[in-house]
């Protein structure tokens, strides 16, 4: 998808990256705050940011790459407009999350780490959302939903798509 970007889009992305670096580089332990700022803005962490970050923080490109890829939260590829996370942890398993996962995957026609054809939804596994009193839980964007069924997930996804 990166190759699909126009020259102008690449330049815009680079200037956004530079701005996030400039804003955060002087705080102690700046790398994670910079990566968060980039992903919050662009939606993912493009490899194009490795070089400017490594220069600003006096790190090697390998070190930046190592950090980005260590953490599950950072996306190294573009994601859909909405990120849907299904909790796979024990509490949700005790309330049937395995079946929920299978049904949601079938309904969306994608597996984990994939994005629907229309680019609307990326499906990710997550290990605990802290909503264990109301398992099974999912998270769509920043919103948590409890006591989920495949039908309810379909409903919130449809709402998000329509919005």
């Amino acid at each position, binding site marked *: 998808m990166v190759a699909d970007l126009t020259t102008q889009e690449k330049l815009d992305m680079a200037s956004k990256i530079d701005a996030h670096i400039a804003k955060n580089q002087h705080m102690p332990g700046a790398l994670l705050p910079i990566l968060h700022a980039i992903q919050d803005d662009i939606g993912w962490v493009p490899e194009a940011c490795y070089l400017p970050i490594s220069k600003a923080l006096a790190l090697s490109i390998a070190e930046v790459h190592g950090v980005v890829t260590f953490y599950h939260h*950072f996306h190294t590829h573009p994601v859909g407009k909405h990120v849907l996370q299904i909790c796979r942890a024990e509490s*949700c398993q*005790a309330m049937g999350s395995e079946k929920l996962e299978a049904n949601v995957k079938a309904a969306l026609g994608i597996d984990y780490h994939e994005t629907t054809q229309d680019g609307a939804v990326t499906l990710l596994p997550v290990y*605990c959302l*802290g*909503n264990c009193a*109301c398992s099974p839980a999912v998270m769509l964007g920043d919103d948590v939903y409890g006591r989920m069924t495949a039908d309810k997930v379909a409903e919130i996804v449809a709402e998000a798509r329509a919005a």
Partner: protein
Amino acid sequence: MVKVYVPRDSTALSLGADRTAKAIQAEAGKRGMQIELIRNGSRGLFWLEPFVEVATSEGRVAFAPVQPKDVPSLFDADFLNAGAHPLNLGLTEEISWLKKQQRLTFARSGITNPVCLDDYVAHHGYKGLNNALKMTSAEIVKAVTDSGLRGRGGAAFPTGIKWNTVLGAKGEQKYIVCNADEGDSGTYSDRMIMEDDPFVLIEGMTIAGIAVGATQGYIYLRSEYPHALKTLNEAIAKAEQAGYLGQNICGSGHAFNLEVRRAAGAYICGEETSLLESLEGKRGQVRFKPPLPAIEGLFGKPTVVNNVISLATIPIILDEGAQYYADYGMGRSRGTLPIQLAGNIKQAGLVELAFGATLRELLYDFGGGSATGRPIRAVQVGGPLGAFLPESQFDTPLDYEEFSKIWAVLGHGGIVAFDDSVDMSKMARYAFEFCAIESCGKCTPCRIGSTRGAEVIDRIVANRGNAKEHGKQVQLVRDLSDTMINGSLCALGGMTPYPVLSAINHFGEDFGIESAKKAAT
């Protein structure tokens, strides 16, 4: 104007609290009635969320669970004057599930507006700090030590001893780091503190800073908690404005600044040395100990690393006194434990009790049995690295040492219930699988043992009919577990065998072991 409370806690939101709040506001408008809608924290009765309360002269009256469709009938029943309605639960304080609890750390949760500093102060807030400001560093540390408080993150190390080490360590710069990377399944008490009473954590960290001479604090917050992030940042800004944080706290001359740092979805960063690496901007790989973080922690400086609940318990200890806190509990487990009921349980929620209550009381008296109505077959206490307990162990009192005796852990106080449809061989496999996904990769037993372990579980299950091969594979998983327990650098590799072996030992039939051997580990 009548005060109506609708929680803003994210579990309440996950069940539609925002829609309920909007519906109440709209219905009041339609009927030309004036109400003051307050978005409070949650009382922790999550099976009853959205849990609406109305302030009356008798006290707050609960209506729950309230969905938007219930709202017109509530107004018809004059719920603003505590009118009769099927959802009317009476006075909140009289609900036995709540009344039977001993809420110390969670004294304010659900009562106050979490981001209203005046509300916090009006409910005993900042009394602990005021006392601490009149004490010497050594006196504060002594109070924490005397209270018997042990790390609530899971390791149960005495908090006062940790603080004393940092107090005695030489260093121009020291840090207070709050471990808010609450990744254990079945736990949500940290999240509740941060969303429902964030000032108590801020106050606790400030006291810690004053006690050990640290001027900078960090809250390392998991990225899965966006609501907690917003609430904490709002509360920190208010505390700064009011002079409770900053260069001169309450005119005392003490400085303490606080910043929230977002984690990035790595379970291992709940391990304190990985957490410090991550805060420094590195891969969250476990450090060798020694040196202890108390001596060489964040950026090589003396650092207190405490869990959210440990820090949020400091204010009441400094407010009511060490003895007051220590009077609760049993044996060497002093004070209270915020227990989180989760999984397949009918009445899930937060139960804060003095140590000593049994699992059975929690599962049945509070939990009401399973949500599905089937028998509870197993419970996992203490997160993904905690042992699975069978019904024969449900009378074990919640106490660090009593749990240790049955080769189990209390951890962060999460209890996940499973009914009789659970396949324990799947749970054992999952424990290895989770370890493989989350291993930092630094030590071999964890990095490789976790993957090999999942394979061995598959072979155990596949060889049910083949006694010789089956026995060999069971022995292999025991040997592997032994290597992981004794050879791993941290608790991830070192404790993954807890769920695995407890599942095999107590639920051998799920692995094709006819008589479940209670093998010593």
